[in-house]
């Protein structure tokens, strides 16, 4: 098996018709299960006058079953004093683990799993690590955060050996030592880690450091063009991955042509972001912008059912050139990230690109301070490299100039040394849009 291209070839290259049949089978099992057990599902379905007997096919499910939003979960949690927001379908005692979403938006959602050997969130990730080229006996940098559970289970599933060192802020001197000793083939990177690697690259031969790597994964936020180019200049092949509505992960393959969702694990939909009900939020065509909607097919404890993620994606169900057949998608941004200031519209990525062009702020660590989606004043908190900044007032002028050019409105800037801004990060990422 180590010589095979795919970790689970039968699953990963399953014909589309078989994927659809498998999903329909699981959905028809899920429908009565969640209706009986999930208080939030029961409430939403009763409000929409939908009963399990109305759902007899996958098409019925996607046409009639109401969506669940993060606000629905939050409101149910507060109204019913239910920590799981009405999602829990078993006794709490049946859960092995209760983890939570990053909480970047200020309110983490709990999700639980029952499991025995490997944590289910990371089980399918073994397919993705295999695709990167991780094989039995390889060392990998067992890095990242643990809030979603033991990510190193995916490493161990493919027979790799996690080297568990700190790759967070301030940890990379040690991590470089570990890389030189064990010559790992893979690591998980975050935006906050990239900021530190950027600084280390001034005194360290990064091509030599990463010469043993087959690839590195990056997640949590968009990868800026400068950061990608920098990683590539170090010889690192970057694999982006993202979450599919907090059900599981979706990773790029060697083609780097979209993130593969594992459709035996999640029913993935892309719907019109503007509407709120099945009647007004129809599926969008392949390749069109839509909001990611996820339904768990493999979690009997807290299954998400038509969960609207707020993630804007483009999706295709066309087979990938790698040979896999499951849907792929390209994350575009977060619903609601679009901001209007003084009548002009922009997204955080516009500021991101602008800051990458200023050497002292090239790591693009910033926060858009936005109490509402429409604002009168563009307030931006920007991190700068204190080691290379000689004059903060002069830097302020240059940053103001590039942001004004990108957005069309002069910003009100709060400049902070990078370490101070990094301290405001959560779950390995810096919230890019904050209220204060």
């Amino acid at each position, binding site marked *: *098996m*180590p010589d095979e291209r795919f*970790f*689970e070839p039968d699953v990963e290259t399953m014909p589309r018709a078989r994927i659809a049949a498998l999903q329909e089978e699981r959905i028809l099992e899920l429908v009565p299960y969640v209706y009986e057990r999930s208080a939030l599902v029961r409430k939403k379905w009763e409000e929409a006058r939908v009963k399990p007997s109305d759902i007899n096919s996958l098409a019925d499910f996607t046409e009639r079953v109401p969506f669940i939003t993060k606000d629905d979960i939050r409101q149910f*949690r507060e109204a019913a004093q239910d*920590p799981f927001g009405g999602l829990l379908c078993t*006794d*709490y*005692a049946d*859960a*092995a*683990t*209760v983890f*939570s979403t990053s*909480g970047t938006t200020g309110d983490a959602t*709990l999700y*639980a799993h029952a*499991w025995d*050997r*490997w944590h*289910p969130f990371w*089980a*399918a990730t*073994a397919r993705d690590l295999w695709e990167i080229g991780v094989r*039995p*006996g390889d*060392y990998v940098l*067992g*890095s*990242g*955060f*643990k*809030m979603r*559970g*033991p*990510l*190193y289970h995916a490493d*161990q*599933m*493919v*027979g*790799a*050996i*996690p*080297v*568990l060192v*700190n790759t*967070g802020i301030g940890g990379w001197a040690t991590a470089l*030592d*570990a890389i030189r*000793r*064990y010559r790992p083939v893979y690591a998980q990177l975050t935006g906050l880690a990239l900021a530190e690697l950027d600084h280390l690259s001034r005194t360290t031969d990064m091509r030599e450091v990463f010469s043993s790597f087959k690839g590195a994964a990056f997640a949590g936020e968009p990868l800026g063009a400068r950061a990608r180019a920098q990683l590539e200049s170090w010889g690192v092949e970057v694999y982006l991955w993202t979450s599919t509505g907090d059900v599981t992960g979706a990773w790029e393959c060697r083609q780097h042509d979209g993130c593969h969702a594992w459709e*035996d694990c999640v029913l993935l939909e892309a719907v019109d972001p503007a509407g709120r009900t099945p009647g007004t939020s129809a599926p969008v065509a392949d390749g069109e912008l839509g909001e990611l909607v996820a339904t768990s*097919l*493999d979690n009997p404890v807290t299954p998400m059912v038509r969960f609207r993620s707020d993630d804007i994606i483009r999706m295709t169900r066309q087979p990938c050139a790698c040979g896999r057949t499951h849907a792929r998608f390209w994350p575009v941004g977060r619903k609601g990230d679009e901001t209007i200031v003084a009548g002009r519209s922009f997204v955080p990525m516009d500021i991101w690109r602008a800051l990458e062009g200023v050497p002292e702020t090239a790591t693009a660590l910033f926060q858009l301070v936005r109490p509402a989606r429409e604002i009168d004043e563009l307030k931006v908190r920007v991190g700068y490299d204190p080691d290379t900044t000689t004059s903060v007032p002069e830097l302020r002028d240059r940053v103001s100039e590039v942001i004004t050019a990108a957005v069309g409105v002069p910003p009100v800037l709060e400049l902070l040394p990078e370490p101070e801004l990094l*301290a*405001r*990060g*959560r*779950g390995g990422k810096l919230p890019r849009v904050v209220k204060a």
Partner: protein
Amino acid sequence: MTAASSAAAAAALPRPGPWGIGRYDAAGQPVFFEVGWDDWRRDVAWARAMLADHGVGPVKGDGPGGGSPPCAEKVGGGLIVVSGMPESPWFDPFETAARELGAPYSIGEIYAFEAFRTGMYARRLPVTMIFGLDRTVAEGLGDELAEVVARVPVIVARPDAAGLLARAGAQPFIVSRVGPALAVECPYRSGAHVNGAEWAVAERGGELFISTAGPRAHQASEAALGLRGTLTDGPCGCGRTGQRVIISEGA
């Protein structure tokens, strides 16, 4: 199902290396150490016994109980394990043990910006033990610390958090990394037990040294840990007879 099919594929693979690699400091130098799969299984068994002594077991429907030493009753709730990814060689056995004992667990990371997560779990869930609480997270909880202390009956804390927790009204038990080993206080509070089948600790001039005693992948010999503390021997109220360490606060 996905988890089952992926696990089946994983089971068919060779696993030629150890469980993982950790790192500790000895004599001011980093020491990378292997944890073998057999080492890990024995660590899980020891962790099960330590957690069971604290009353960790299947969640009971009639609410939390116990918590005061000696814990005659089952704690009967979930756990928050406060640890970071690099600490997994020490803390994963306790996470695995909690799962095997039937107690759901959550992870509160050890970073200040993640302190909110420990507070959130303690506030929302029927948690009856926090295991591994350190000063960074305790301070990061701010005003919420007193509420967490009042809500969670058993707190097993790092030495650097003990004073802060005591001032907040807790009577924490102690857990501490001792080089590649983990020392954990039992409900009798007579020092933190080290698994004597695996490790031997010595104390000279107030500094702790560790050697491997068991058939582990990592063989340490009198490794100077730069850790201040004292040793206690003799029988403990819990029935164990091995070494216990008392770590100086702030270590």
